[in-house]
């Protein structure tokens, strides 16, 4: 207990904190310019000076820790005089262009100058000149306004870990500049602009569009780009979204964002958005009225149901749909159409991985708090780059690394290059072998905990793969592998982060088993990277061909009947087709009608030509989307949909935290759930919802895991898994998991040629990002990343164009040389034009049912 006096007020604190924190806890305001809670104390601006009794000079409150009996005064003559002097110095070179500076009204310097500042300047000399830099498409730097608090630099280096900025020059000539010069070459997280206290670093997206006091409303919502679900504030004037800003200290991101959340919101005002339904007449998509489109769809679905049976109809949901929309959609398919042919994009990787782990460890095993990552003492990343797919989660990995936790990466992770102790990049079969070998070595070092005897039997039954063999096969040094085994075995509470690349291979099911074994042996928490905001929600809502809401298998009679009774519908008992199977069935002509809600199937699946053929084959294709996507161009009816900022709903993120997305602006269109219920009414099932709350109430009633939650609970942030202790499904059924025959995998491995793998790109989420001009402006032209040796052999330089050829086709891409890559792997991101999926084909993994991409070999033609 430490007792101090601030401004004659006695304060007792438990821990020695800084004077600033002590004062804030007592509600006393001390001005600051260079202090930020999430950054280390810096003590650079001296505005927080306070007077401490018995100390002759003034002390900076942000760096000085309290001691027993300290007497502090924060607003004495002397302190105010000092602050005035500092402000006078700061203003010497300040351009005082508040009238056109977008920061005005929310600028710390302006507020302080109003409060303490001198009314006139005494300096007759000219001011420092530094032209505003417009070189970057998104970030505008005006270094005349900079007060050199260095918050941006510290943010970029300490928190974001990108180290892209620095203070250049000395004294009054100093300014902040990215290392790359005028244009940024960084992660565009925008966190530097969040912390800049003045208008020196600002977003160019809404430059000069607003004054902070003209913003009329703020809506707190969650980001619509990935499965992390960061909280953001949408600021609105009239009916237009002015900007998104992070909410400092709120939400699971605590005010940090990534490029997509920060700059990617502008797709909602893209002029290409559809505003009226389109119906294909005489081969052309023509505008139609809403009522006409809805009745047309209902009538056609009815016809097809009568002529070909319910199972000739299938539905696909995108990971951008809210829980409510997804729930209504699957209810429509099960209840009104009478088929279980309902699936979502979650079944491409996230779902199968989760299902596999839950099968072994029980429901909810992947629902772990994201903040736990930075507290773990070791991290194992496999199958995807967390800093690219779920950037704010990726920051946790970097933060753990800064605290000293070793990071071991398997697979390509651009954003973790400088943070990983060991990184193994290789082709997917070798990856599985490597994993098997790590597990078999760790098994020797660690004893089995004995919690799950059945699973332990499997672990003991795994074929041993000596490190030497793995080293030979993969080409990684034996010492590296031995050290990795040591590093991993020394971890006590590691985080194991799993991305989709590990699932989408023909040995994916084996890799998942080894991962489960690894997690079990190391006592690790499993995190699944999720590329879309609501993949988890889709699984929870029952958008799966063999699962009902809350992840209960369809085949369990009791639950199905309970569902049927509660909802008053009949649910067919045979599981339907999954996403990939639907496309295959469509290709074979067995699916007559396909309803795609929000997903661009052509772009999202690995084989574009095949998928296009399949969609052309479908007799009646309905696509609901914001834009006329490639999939929509094949449709018979296109319905415009609302963006995430235009409707209410909830998203469940990858840690199973339910969060609300709120309506911020009015959009052209009708909510998805309304459209579906209208159709359902015509087909004879009246769902009778009046609002999203009605739907949510029904979800809560039917779903075990969402039991008793209300929108109020969600708003107050209490909806973390397991919600209110709802009963989990404990039916682990490890029996039937086949022991992988890794030896024959090694023997039959096809090591020839160069394998093409997907690189998850930071600025490309493969959905809405495509329609965001801001994200498009920062992302590079389509490229192929290859190793130095391969590029050297073909004598290719960076930026040169090459033709990448596979069995499925060829594309021309520019070359990026990357010394980290092995010779037998090239990486291509999923860009819209020149993306990996133009030249790949898939095979289905027999166990996980996920599309496997590993058979794709490329030839580089110069």
């Amino acid at each position: 207990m430490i007792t101090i006096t601030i401004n004659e007020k006695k304060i007792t604190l438990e821990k020695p904190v800084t004077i600033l924190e002590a004062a804030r806890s007592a509600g006393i305001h001390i001005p600051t310019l260079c202090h930020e809670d999430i950054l280390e104390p810096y003590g650079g601006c001296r505005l927080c000076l306070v007077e401490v009794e018995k100390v002759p000079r003034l002390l900076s409150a942000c760096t000085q820790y309290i001691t027993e009996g300290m007497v502090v005064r924060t607003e004495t003559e002397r302190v105010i005089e000092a602050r005035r002097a500092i402000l006078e110095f700061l203003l010497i070179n300040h351009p005082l262009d508040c009238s056109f500076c977008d920061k005005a009204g929310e600028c710390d310097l302006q507020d302080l100058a109003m409060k303490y500042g001198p009314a006139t300047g005494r300096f007759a000399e000219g001011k420092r000149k530094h032209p505003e830099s417009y070189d970057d498409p998104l970030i505008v730097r005006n270094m005349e306004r900079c007060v050199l608090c260095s918050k941006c630099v510290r943010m970029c280096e300490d928190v974001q870990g990108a180290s892209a900025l620095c203070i250049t020059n000395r004294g009054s000539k100093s300014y902040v500049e990215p290392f790359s010069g005028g244009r940024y070459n960084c992660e565009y997280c925008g966190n530097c602009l969040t912390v800049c206290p003045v208008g020196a670093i600002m977003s160019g997206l809404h430059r000069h569009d607003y004054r902070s006091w003209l913003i009329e409303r703020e809506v707190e919502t969650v980001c619509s780009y990935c499965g992390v679900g960061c909280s953001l504030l949408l600021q609105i004037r009239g009916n237009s979204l002015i900007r998104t800003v992070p909410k400092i200290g709120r939400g699971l991101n605590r005010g940090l964002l990534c490029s997509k959340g920060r700059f990617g919101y502008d797709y909602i005002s893209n002029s290409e958005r559809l505003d009226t339904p389109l119906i294909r007449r005489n081969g052309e998509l023509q505008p139609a009225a809403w009522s006409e489109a809805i009745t047309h769809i209902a009538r056609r679905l009815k016809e097809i149901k009568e002529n070909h049976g319910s199972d000739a109809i299938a539905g696909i949901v995108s990971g951008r749909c809210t829980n409510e929309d997804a729930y209504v959609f699957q209810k429509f398919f099960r209840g009104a159409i009478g088929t279980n042919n309902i699936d979502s994009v979650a079944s491409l990787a996230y779902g199968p991985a989760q299902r596999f782990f839950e099968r072994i460890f029980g429901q909810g095993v992947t629902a772990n708090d994201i903040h736990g990552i930075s507290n773990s003492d070791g991290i194992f990343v496999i199958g995807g780059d967390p800093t690219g797919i779920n950037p704010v989660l990726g920051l946790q990995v970097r933060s753990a690394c800064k605290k000293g936790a070793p990071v071991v990466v398997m697979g390509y992770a651009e954003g973790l290059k400088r943070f990983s102790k060991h990184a193994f990049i290789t082709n997917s079969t070798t990856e599985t072998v490597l994993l098997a070998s790590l597990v078999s070595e760790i098994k020797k070092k660690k004893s089995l905990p004995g919690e799950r005897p059945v699973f332990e039997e499997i672990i003991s039954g795994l074929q041993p793969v000596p490190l030497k063999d793995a080293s030979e096969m993969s080409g990684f040094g034996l010492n590296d592998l031995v050290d990795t085994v040591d590093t991993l075995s020394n971890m006590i509470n590691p985080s194991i982060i799993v991305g989709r690349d590990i699932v989408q291979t023909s040995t994916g099911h084996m890799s998942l088993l080894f991962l489960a074994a690894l997690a079990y042996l190391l006592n690790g928490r499993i995190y699944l990277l999720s590329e879309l905001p609501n993949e988890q929600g889709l699984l929870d809502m029952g958008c799966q061909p063999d699962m009902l809401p809350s992840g209960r298998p369809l085949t369990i009679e009791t639950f199905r009947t309970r569902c049927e009774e509660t909802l008053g519908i009949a649910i067919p008992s045979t599981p339907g087709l999954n996403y990939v199977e639907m496309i295959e069935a469509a290709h074979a002509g067995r699916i007559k009608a396909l309803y795609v809600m929000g997903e661009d199937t052509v772009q999202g699946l690995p084989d574009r030509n095949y998928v296009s053929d399949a969609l052309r084959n479908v007799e009646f294709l309905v696509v609901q989307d914001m834009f006329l996507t490639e999939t929509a161009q094949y449709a018979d009816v296109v319905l415009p949909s609302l963006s995430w900022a235009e409707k209410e709903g909830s998203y469940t993120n990858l840690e199973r935290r339910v969060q609300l997305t709120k309506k911020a602006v009015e959009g052209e269109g009708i909510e998805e759930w309304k459209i579906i219920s209208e159709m359902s009414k015509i087909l004879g099932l009246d769902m009778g919802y009046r609002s999203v709350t009605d739907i949510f109430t029904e979800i809560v009633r039917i779903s075990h895991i969402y039991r008793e939650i209300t929108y109020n609970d969600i708003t107050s942030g209490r909806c973390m898994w397991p919600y209110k202790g709802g009963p989990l499904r404990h039916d682990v059924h490890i029996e039937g998991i086949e022991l992988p025959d890794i030896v024959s995998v090694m023997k039959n491995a096809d090591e020839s040629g160069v394998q093409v793998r997907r690189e998850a790109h930071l600025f490309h989420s493969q959905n809405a990002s495509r329609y965001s001009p801001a994200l498009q402006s920062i992302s590079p032209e389509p490229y192929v990343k290859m190793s130095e040796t391969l590029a050297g052999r073909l004598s290719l330089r960076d930026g040169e164009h090459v033709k990448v050829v596979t069995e499925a086709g060829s594309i021309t891409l520019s070359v990026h040389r990357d010394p980290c890559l092995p010779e037998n792997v090239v990486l291509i991101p999923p860009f819209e034009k020149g993306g990996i999926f133009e030249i790949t084909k898939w095979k289905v993994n027999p166990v996980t049912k996920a599309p496997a991409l590993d058979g794709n070999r490329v030839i580089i033609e110069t």
Partner: protein
Amino acid sequence: MTFKHLVKTVFLTEIVKGMALTLKTMLTRPVTRQYPKEKRPAMPGFRGLHGLVRDQQTGEARCVGCGLCAAICPSKCIYIYTADSLDHKKIVERYEIEALRCVFCGLCVEACPYSAVILTEHYEYSDYSREAFYMTKEKLLANWDNYMGWEKNMEYFKKFWHPTADDFGFPKNQAVFRGKQNAR
């Protein structure tokens, strides 16, 4: 009833007095103005219809869209929409005043650091539609041209608003802080 009262009543003195006043007034100059034939000149500093100052050099509105007038306006009847121009300057796309809601407090004029919005001496703007009172940027600039102009404007400002920008000009190459003391 007193005697005095009796005399008043009998001789109708009140009426005589009244008639005398009437007679006197008939012979003086009339105070009634024959409006609208005869207009009353506005007093200096009169707060009439709004205008946007046209810059002498550029011929454009002097307003930079800083939004201070909109911020201070007690009836919130000023709407400003700005944008970034191709050469990265701030441009005022729309500047609108809903004159029917204005209370003519003059705070907008006082707040403007560029002396760019003024209240002219024009007060005759009755009309049949509400739209006519919705002042767009063009209308406001025309108001200034028609009812104010530069000479009057200078005087008006010097006398009444003690402008912060005493030269009525844009800041030269960069803004320089000019305190109120220096301006006078």
